[in-house]
């Protein structure tokens, strides 16, 4: 009795399995194509219309097969179902790629932003190495000078660094302004201060900075930064000040300068 029941059950199982496998080869192709499309994890979200159409065609093909329609009729529905399933899968892939493009575009903007802030960071670091100070007129680099117009070797190194910076960031210009202490004749001092600024200008041009980016002024002893009554004070007043323009090449003129 028990054996008998198992025998019946296994017969039923065999019947079910053979039912699930389509008899027609084109129908099998259609089912395979449909199952491949269904295996795409996002198919229902990305290609709902297309996969539903494939499902309808597949049902029609199955129904035609079950109703004993001609092979020709089953083949036709099965072929359409197979191709429609492929269309659904490809549509899902297309939509995925579209999402990737949107993501990559957002990422691109993000990276550009990082790049720009990195460039600003690097520029700021380089300027810091030059001991640039923030002033009302913008960033200012002060180079101490000897009695004559010669630049001190430390100052020359700073001029090199400044030239590197200017070559790297062509949007900046500079104003080079020479100053003296108050010892001696005013017109001689003016000449000395002008020569000090020219010396810096020539050093920058030597390093490849365009001459049109460098303005020069000689202010003699008009704008001391320290008292001229001590050696140290006079030493501080003998200097070249380099003003860096804004990013558009604008330089605020010296507020007290006549010209």
């Amino acid at each position, binding site marked *: 009795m028990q054996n008998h029941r198992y025998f019946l059950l296994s017969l039923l199982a065999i019947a079910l399995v053979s039912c699930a496998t389509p008899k027609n080869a084109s129908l099998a192709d259609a089912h395979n194509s449909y199952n491949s499309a269904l295996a795409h994890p996002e198919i229902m979200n990305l290609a709902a219309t297309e996969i539903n159409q494939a499902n309808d065609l597949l049902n029609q093909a199955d129904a035609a097969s079950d109703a004993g329609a001609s092979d*020709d*009729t089953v083949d*036709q529905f099965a072929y*359409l179902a197979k191709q429609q399933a*492929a269309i659904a899968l490809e549509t899902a892939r*297309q939509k995925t*790629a579209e999402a*990737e493009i949107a993501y*990559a575009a957002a990422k691109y903007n993000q990276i550009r932003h990082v790049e720009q802030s*990195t460039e600003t960071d690097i520029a700021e670091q380089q300027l810091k190495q030059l001991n640039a100070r923030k002033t009302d007129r913008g960033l200012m680099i002060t180079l101490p000078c000897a009695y004559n117009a010669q630049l001190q070797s430390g100052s020359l190194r700073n001029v090199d660094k400044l030239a590197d910076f200017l070559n790297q960031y062509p949007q900046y210009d500079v104003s080079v302004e020479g100053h003296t202490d108050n010892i001696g004749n005013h017109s001689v001092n003016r000449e000395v201060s002008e020569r000090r600024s020219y010396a810096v200008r020539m050093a920058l041009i030597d390093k490849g900075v365009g001459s049109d980016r460098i303005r020069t002024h000689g202010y003699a002893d008009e704008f001391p930064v320290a008292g001229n009554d001590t050696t140290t004070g006079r030493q501080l007043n003998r200097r070249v000040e380099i003003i860096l323009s804004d990013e558009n090449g604008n330089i605020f003129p010296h507020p007290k300068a006549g010209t």
Partner: protein
Amino acid sequence: MMHSISLTAVVAVLITGCASIPAPTEQIAASKTALNYAADKGGREFAPLQLESAREAMNAAEQAMIDKDYRRAWQMAERARIDAHLAVTIARSAKTQKAARKLQEINLDLAREIDRKVQ
């Protein structure tokens, strides 16, 4: 009611293969348009197999029209149309995927460039 009757009629035509179905002229024209569209929109480059399959079906449909086998003409026209549709879909998908890869490469290059600058 009318609807279900006409549907039954269509199914009957399909199953019995009745010879009295009208010439699928519109169907043929629509499939031809779809085929040309697919060829124009990158099918030649990205889906040559599907495009070829569409062409073969189209030729078979036209031959069936000459033979006045309208049932076959109708079936082949439908195959041509869906093949062409698949070709267009594959071409569009391939182009989009290509663009996505390109953008990803650009981003990668840009990120590398920044890394170099920072170091």
